[in-house]
């Protein structure tokens, strides 16, 4: 479910969820304003994620930091205190407001370049419409983890091949084979620096997410029989 509402229970469940982010706070709420939707831009280091977000964001992409606290491997033998390490990891943030036909805010989240910080990937992907897995043909493998992650959590995604100057252009089936994609997963080419090209990738993603939402059992015509 793509809507991000602070009071709704929808989120990607994960083991060892950090306390606090799911706590039952009673914040003052007011009805009004556009719905907020999330989109994720994933892929390895240097594939063009920040450039991609910057091409459509109305603010320059922000680098937002998060501290990940990890239990240390060692326990202090004198005090029995388990050591914790805090790692700083940064992700990109951009924002795109749409006004017509209805006001909507799209928040764009870029995954950290290092794909070992999966904890933060869950936070970025929770409640998202879907993900753009950005790939550089010179090292497709840098984006394999991103595609696997999306498949595992059931997040609709498209593979967008960022066509760097001078990089070899592969036919679509070669990209599909390399990523072992399902037949319905879209593969598109893009120039992460060009607004219309990036917008086209987002269109493809939302179209794909819509098709996936319509294909879910709740939307099949049979479900009315079950409801009756």
């Amino acid at each position, binding site marked *: *479910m*793509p*809507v*991000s*509402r*602070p009071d709704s229970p929808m*989120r990607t469940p994960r083991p060892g969820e950090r306390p*606090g*982010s799911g*706590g039952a*706070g009673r*914040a*003052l*709420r007011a009805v*009004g*304003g*556009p*719905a*907020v939707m999330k989109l994720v831009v994933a892929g390895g*280091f240097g594939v063009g994620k920040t450039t991609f977000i910057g091409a459509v964001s109305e603010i320059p992409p*922000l680098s*937002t*930091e*998060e*501290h990940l606290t990890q239990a240390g*491997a060692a326990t202090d033998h004198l005090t029995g205190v388990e*050591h*914790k*390490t*805090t*790692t*700083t990891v940064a992700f990109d*943030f951009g*924002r795109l407001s*749409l006004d*017509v*036909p*209805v006001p*909507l805010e799209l*928040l764009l*989240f870029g995954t950290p370049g*290092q794909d070992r910080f999966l904890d933060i990937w869950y936070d970025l992907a*929770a409640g998202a419409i879907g993900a753009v897995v950005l790939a550089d043909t010179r090292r497709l493998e840098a984006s394999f983890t991103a595609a696997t992650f999306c498949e595992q959590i059931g997040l609709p995604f498209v593979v967008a091949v960022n066509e760097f100057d001078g990089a070899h252009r592969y036919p*679509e089936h070669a*990209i599909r084979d390399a990523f072992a994609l399902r037949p319905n997963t879209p593969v*598109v*080419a*893009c120039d992460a620096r060009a607004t219309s090209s990036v*917008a*086209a*990738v*987002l*269109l*493809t993603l*939302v179209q794909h997410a*819509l098709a996936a*939402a*319509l294909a879910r059992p*709740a*939307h099949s015509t049979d479900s009315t029989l079950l409801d009756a």
Partner: protein
Amino acid sequence: MRPHSGPKPLSAGASVEVADFVRTYTLTGGRTRPRHRLRLETVLELGPGRPGPALPLECEQILVLCRIRRRSVAELAGTLGRPVSAVRILVSDLLDTRALRVPVPAADSAYIPSSDPAAGNDPSVKLLEAVLAGLKTRFPDAYPQAG
């Protein structure tokens, strides 16, 4: 607290920044958990309440930013250059005093008639259709390309 005697992360791209962590810890009065459920995408706007006295500078900055326009937790943290975990706690304090509040979109805010009868009234499908229509309107020259 014994600073930083645990193992270091392996990646060169990540760093253990003790000074940074201590600074954040001080900023939030030693607290590490917010009382409110705040996601990265939770949006904050100014509320009717008054913030308490002796407000940390960062809280004042948050109020200034949200007075200009509503902002998400992720945007506030990125703009302030503070970690999300610290900003969650500061925002939580500001929610307690109603200096900030969480706007919730009206249930029908994204309602547009669905072209597909099978879609029914599911807001997720409606919202996706609204996003699609919004993107097409905003970027009329965007043509999906085959890979």
